[in-house]
């Protein structure tokens, strides 16, 4: 049909439609960007105002909130709002998980890129992608039914412990770390490898002395992104960590994190009550922490560019 039109019309039409397409395309992407930015800013503002209410409106001291280890918000006569044990729990479980997942993930990445780039990648890549696809509630349930009894019987304690949380989280953040580390390793210029081999280095020496140091900022980014995910994870951790308000004394003690306390209590509390406000304050701490993680990542990637 269109071929029957005179050339002029055809060209003119296509020109106008191209311009229209240009404009619409631009409008669409700008709109996307604006929506994303607005959403982020709106969430930040909302969470800040809500989170600060417990200090401004309810008069809880920030120092006490952050440093006291006594949490007893329902005690009518003498309520205490110290979230230190939960902050500690969040950090402890996150760092422990990263300690387990980082070597595993980076090792897997090196295996995929350096040792067995063809068949290793073919096997490991789908496995890692599969791990991403498993919902966190499933991780939690497996942790509750398999891991907790196993630790109770073979390691000690109640089974509900930092250790269980650490293992579940380590498996959950493994794909994040592996994927980013693999990208980092495979994007290293080949002349690094060739130069190293030319100097007579073995493969392991090349990996250890040349490739890993060269990719280090990206590898650290991978670990921190994994930690950011671990820090914010609620459901799976809640099912295995025991949610005890006391400070844990050992890795086998039950503990609680900021996210588990929020998810356990949010539905039961009424909007505007002190308890609800303190939960929002915990949410604000989580937000600040995720900003800190992002700043750290940006710092690391700026270092990477300088190289």
């Amino acid at each position, binding site marked *: 049909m269109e071929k029957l039109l005179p050339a002029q019309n055809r060209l003119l039409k296509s020109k106008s439609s191209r311009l229209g397409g240009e404009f619409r395309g631009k409008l669409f992407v700008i709109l996307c960007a604006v929506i994303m930015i607005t959403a982020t800013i709106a969430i930040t503002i909302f969470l800040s105002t809500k989170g600060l209410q417990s200090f401004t409106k309810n008069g809880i001291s920030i120092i006490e909130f952050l440093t006291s280890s006594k*949490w*007893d*918000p*329902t*005690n009518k006569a003498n309520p205490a709002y110290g979230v230190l044990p939960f902050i500690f729990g969040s950090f402890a479980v996150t760092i422990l998980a990263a300690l387990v997942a980082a070597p595993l993930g980076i090792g897997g990445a090196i295996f995929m890129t350096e040792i067995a780039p063809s068949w290793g990648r073919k096997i490991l890549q789908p496995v890692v992608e599969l791990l991403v696809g498993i919902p966190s509630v499933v991780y939690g349930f497996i942790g*509750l039914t398999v891991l*907790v*009894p196993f630790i*109770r019987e073979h390691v000690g304690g*109640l*089974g*509900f412990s930092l250790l269980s949380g650490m293992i579940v989280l380590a498996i959950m953040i493994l794909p994040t770390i592996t994927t980013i580390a693999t990208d980092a390793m495979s994007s290293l210029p080949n002349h690094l490898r060739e130069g190293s081999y030319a100097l007579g280095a073995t493969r392991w020496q090349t990996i250890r002395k040349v490739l890993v140091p060269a990719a280090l900022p990206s590898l650290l980014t991978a670990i921190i992104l994994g930690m950011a995910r671990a820090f914010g994870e609620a459901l799976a951790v809640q*099912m295995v960590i*025991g*949610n*005890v*308000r*006391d400070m844990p004394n050992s890795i086998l003690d*039950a503990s*609680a994190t900021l996210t588990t*306390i929020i998810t*356990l*209590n*949010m*539905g*039961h*509390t*009424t*909007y*505007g*009550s*002190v*308890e*609800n406000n303190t939960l929002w304050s915990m949410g604000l701490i989580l937000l600040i922490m995720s900003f800190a993680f992002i700043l750290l990542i940006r710092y690391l990637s700026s270092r990477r560019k300088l190289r």
Partner: protein
Amino acid sequence: MKSLKKFSLLTLLTALIIFSAACGGKGTNGSKEGTDKKDNPAQKTEELSGSLVISGSSAMQPLVAAAAEEFMAENPKVDIQVNAGGSGTGLSQVAEGSVQIGNSDVFAEEKEGVPADQLVDHKVAVVGMTAAVNPKVGIKDIKKEDLIKVFTGKITNWKELGGENQKIVLVNRPDSSGTRAVFNQFALDGATPAEGITEDSSNTVKKIISETEGAIGYLAFSYFTDDSVTPLAIDGVKPTEENVQSGKFPIWAYQHSYTKGEAEGLAKAFLDYLMSDNIQNTLLKEQGYLPVTKMKVERDAKGNQKDI
């Protein structure tokens, strides 16, 4: 071909927008219709229509949803949506008017930040609960004072109470949980329990008690369906329906449905339906609740009990 694609995308988008707009509109229209009905009692026998949004206690959600299902089957033009978000959420939402009924497992007076005087309480069911222990503990009856000692951490081994030589492991509920509030008030006489594993979901609590040596927690009667956990009698009074109804067994609570101001229209019709013999005597039992209509005692928000 290209324009056709674009056109279909546009149509799809428009359809989506119109659809969502229609959905949004239906809610408000429907509830208005519901309230209009009330103004004209002559029309009461007419078929009910409209929509109703209910929110609140996750423990009550299955019961209310099941009742709503039957109600909708009888009144096909009615649409009832039952959300679970927790008692606090239900009370807050009904107070601010975003839902018509807010379910709660505690009195609104007990929750901070809710205008309890604006809300009207409809007690739709009673739930009995008791302490539950791991069957290997070897105890079936406990004195109330011992129970308090167990939960406050003064007794730490079951052999002190004549059970097996097992360390006591407490399984608590979150601070703000209604179940915890009821148990603390009526089983522990207001004592604050010592720290222990904390879980919100009754199913998880039951699972933990049944799997952990020496564990004790508390569950509603409806969770004692098998012998994976042992319900405890308190001061020799067995945790049975009859004992709760006669007021002998102390640990029970109402399940409340709150409306803002007196219930009207569809909300009233549904609450009446919940109180009907049909629901109270059959559905409630199926869901593990006790009919509120058969209670021989009643309680106020402060926990004072008296005979009726």
